[in-house]
């Protein structure tokens, strides 16, 4: 009856009240917003940095399960060695983490048959796979490697070299990783002041890198990411030229992580752009 009435346009439609869907009924759980940028800088002839970003979200029963993989690699070594080393490392690590962790996670239900491997083992193995691959393919070259696997609000970080991972919260930068550089060690021992570091002749000497072969000891960090914090990964082309307060200010004042990355690169170039500049910024939104 209702239908025929409507068809014949006999009755005016009753006024429909706008129903606003309450926020709480939307998916719960954190989301990641990502910005990324890489630039050759103003001095170098090639860009030997590589990066990788991947973001995925599974949502079920109203709960979200975010996953992220973010990687920076700064290559070094004559001819094309550096480019080769960092590119190969980015691909090998991404493939290994997906193969050994994320895909099995996706396929395991509550009745899991495959025992799940601890994350620290998966990412440390991925780094060692890259180490052997680079040694095989580009024996004279090497690369730094700093990458983070994010699951929910936990970041699992593996690190070798002098690229860096920072946690930004409440407007302040906290360096998570430790540089594997001779310089960092000398500063730690009080042999050089941090101010002298910028012009020190051995500032580029690393004592550990992907591609050096053998078994590589890779640093592992587990960081809990609070809501509205950021994870920032970058090569030394960025942190070597912009100090921490300045980086924090740029992130704070930018409307999006992508915009922040663009500004950070721009600023590094303004300061001389002596090296390749790469930055990834991940915002954890509640």
């Amino acid at each position, binding site marked *: 009856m209702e239908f025929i009435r409507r068809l014949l346009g006999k009755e005016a439609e009753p006024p429909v009240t706008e129903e606003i869907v309450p926020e709480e009924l939307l998916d719960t759980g954190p989301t990641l917003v990502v910005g990324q940028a890489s630039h050759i800088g103003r001095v170098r002839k090639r860009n030997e940095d590589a990066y990788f970003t991947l973001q995925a979200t599974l949502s079920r029963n109203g709960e979200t399960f975010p996953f992220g993989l973010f990687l920076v690699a700064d290559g070094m070594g004559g001819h094309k060695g550096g480019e080769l080393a960092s590119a190969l490392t980015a691909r090998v690590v991404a493939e290994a983490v997906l193969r050994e962790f994320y895909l099995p996670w996706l396929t395991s239900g509550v009745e899991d048959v495959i025992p799940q*491997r*601890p994350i*620290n083992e998966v990412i440390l193995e991925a780094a060692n796979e890259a180490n052997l691959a680079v040694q095989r393919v580009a024996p004279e070259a090497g690369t730094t490697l700093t990458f983070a696997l994010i699951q929910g609000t*936990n970041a699992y970080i593996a690190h070798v070299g002098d690229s860096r991972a920072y946690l930004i919260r409440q407007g302040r930068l906290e360096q998570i990783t430790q540089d594997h550089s001779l310089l960092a060690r*000398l500063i730690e*021992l009080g042999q050089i002041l941090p101010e002298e570091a910028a012009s020190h002749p051995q500032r580029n000497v690393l004592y550990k890198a992907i591609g050096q072969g053998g078994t590589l000891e890779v640093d*592992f960090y*587990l960081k809990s990411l609070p809501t509205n914090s950021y994870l920032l990964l970058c090569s030394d082309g960025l942190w070597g030229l912009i100090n921490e307060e300045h980086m924090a200010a740029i992130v704070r004042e930018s409307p999006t992580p992508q915009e922040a990355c663009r500004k950070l690169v721009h600023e590094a170039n303004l300061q001389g752009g002596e090296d390749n500049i790469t930055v990834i910024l991940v915002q954890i939104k509640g």
Partner: protein
Amino acid sequence: MALSTRQFPELEGHLEEGETLPIGIVLQKRYQITEVLGIGGQSVVYQARDMKFPNVTKLCAVKEMINAAPDLRLRELAVRNFEREADVMAELNHAALPKIFDKFSEGNRSYLVMDFIPGKDLEAILEEAPGFLSENQVIQWGIEICDVLAYLHSRQPGPIVFRDVKPSNVMSGPQERVMLIDFGIARVFQPDQKGTMIGTEGYSPPEQYRGIAEPRGDIYALGATLHHLLTKRDPRLEPPFSFEERPVRSINPDVSEGLEAIVMRALQYDMDKRFSSAEEMKLALTALVELRAGDSSGVAVGTIALPRSSDGVLATWEFVCEDEIFSSPVVSNGVLYIGAYDHNLWALDAKSGEFIWKYATEGGINAQPCVYDDKVIVGSEDRVLYAVHTSRGRIVWSCPTNGRIRSSARVEFDIVFFGSDDGYLYTVRAQSGRVVWRFQAMKEIRSSPAIDGEVVYVGSDDGHLYALNIQDGKRRWQFRIARGVMSSPLVFEGLVYVGGMDNSLYAIDARYGSAAWRYRTGGRVISSPAISPELGVVYVGSVDGSVYAVDADSGRLVWKFPTEDQVISSPSVFKGVVYIGSRDGHLYALDAKSGDLRWKFKTEGRVLSSAPPAIYEGMVYIGATDHRVYALPI
């Protein structure tokens, strides 16, 4: 037969940068290159035949300077430095220094000619040795190197700093005497490296990077050399200046404390803390030899750590039950409650150990009791969970199950959580003992549950750690641990820590059920982990006999303490001290930060409780298989 000049090809024209001389080339119409002996950063060394003695094979070593300076002015500077240093060397006279007897330039390169030393360098000897080298041999080398360094440092008008002491620069020559080779020839001006380099010289002292090269730097380098020779750990492969993280004896325990002390003193970052001269170091090494020859107990030279004495600790009181005690007590309101294999739940005064009451069940009690409100709750091997009045020991309620109960109960939100050998995790109202829900695992649940927020975590012998909703017992996730879980989980800052029968300690993400990290021990981990929130360290025992301290975030080992037998019981952490019992019969008190032994207490039996010692008002309480409950002061 007439000698033809064609048999002695001469160097014609320019050699390309980076090219070594071809074999057979003759330099200065006199030295025929026969072999490349080694290529270093600054030089190449060849073996050559001195053709001035054609009827015999007189060998010599020809050292060629690598001149990588980018421009002509710097190149000339490098050559002049080289010549000046060659002059200095020519004047030196020491058994450990090869004699120079010629120098020249040819083509665009500079050369020195010196004695050829047959033999192997210490790096090669170290590599070829099947195990560690003998301490006496290393001390002997140390003494001889100190001797030649002392000679160099005492030259006039100024000391000569060798600057490159390392195993590959020390030959074990004729009569096994050492010879220093690759004498600091021509420190060529290194152009500023543009790109990043990998690798450092692990033997160099830190002050060298500030441009300071003085005799005490050679002492550091000698210390680094001896460290490498004793431990077989190449400092170039380790983070720079990190020798203190690898004390000699922690890698090679056969080394005497005296030698370790000498090596570590030479390796002090601060120059002023090292030996002030090579002569002083030589005296220390010589004194050590005499000591070792005379007396085998090896008294050390210099400061050494005193052997730790474990102070005798006396119990404040002990109480004897009627049978073995396999669990730990709990203390509340000045009363200590403990179950024993004599079927009884005992209540004793915590300060004096005086008997208050006991409650008899029908089976042995293996679990730790739990106090809630005015009730003490504990399960028995008679398959029943009991709630008994704290004041008189009268029964309030009981909850039967179909299996022995060894899991310790926990109470949250007025609900009691406990597991049974019948494979169920039970939730029961604390006031009435009525079952709310139960979850079925496939095998016994012997571990105790942990509750955090809306989730309860418990392990089962069926090989899983389960995360269940508190409301309804619905499974959120399960994590597989081979051979089962007897350890009780601990939840802290979003991670669940638990030990497994697969020998590992796990940290599992509480929300996702994926393992953040795993730490492998040498035996099953039945012990339940405890944490120090201030230090961020997790402590647990293993059947392999050791107590482990592991970083809570990264899973890296902080320290490890060996006991004499399996560690099945769990640790308690209180005010910077870890208390844990071992099957060897002792209760240990270990420093939470360093793992050093503070004291230990011997019972007459074994400490097998899987629950941690109870700590209350200045005392620690444990039970042992000698039927006793002990109260010890802390």
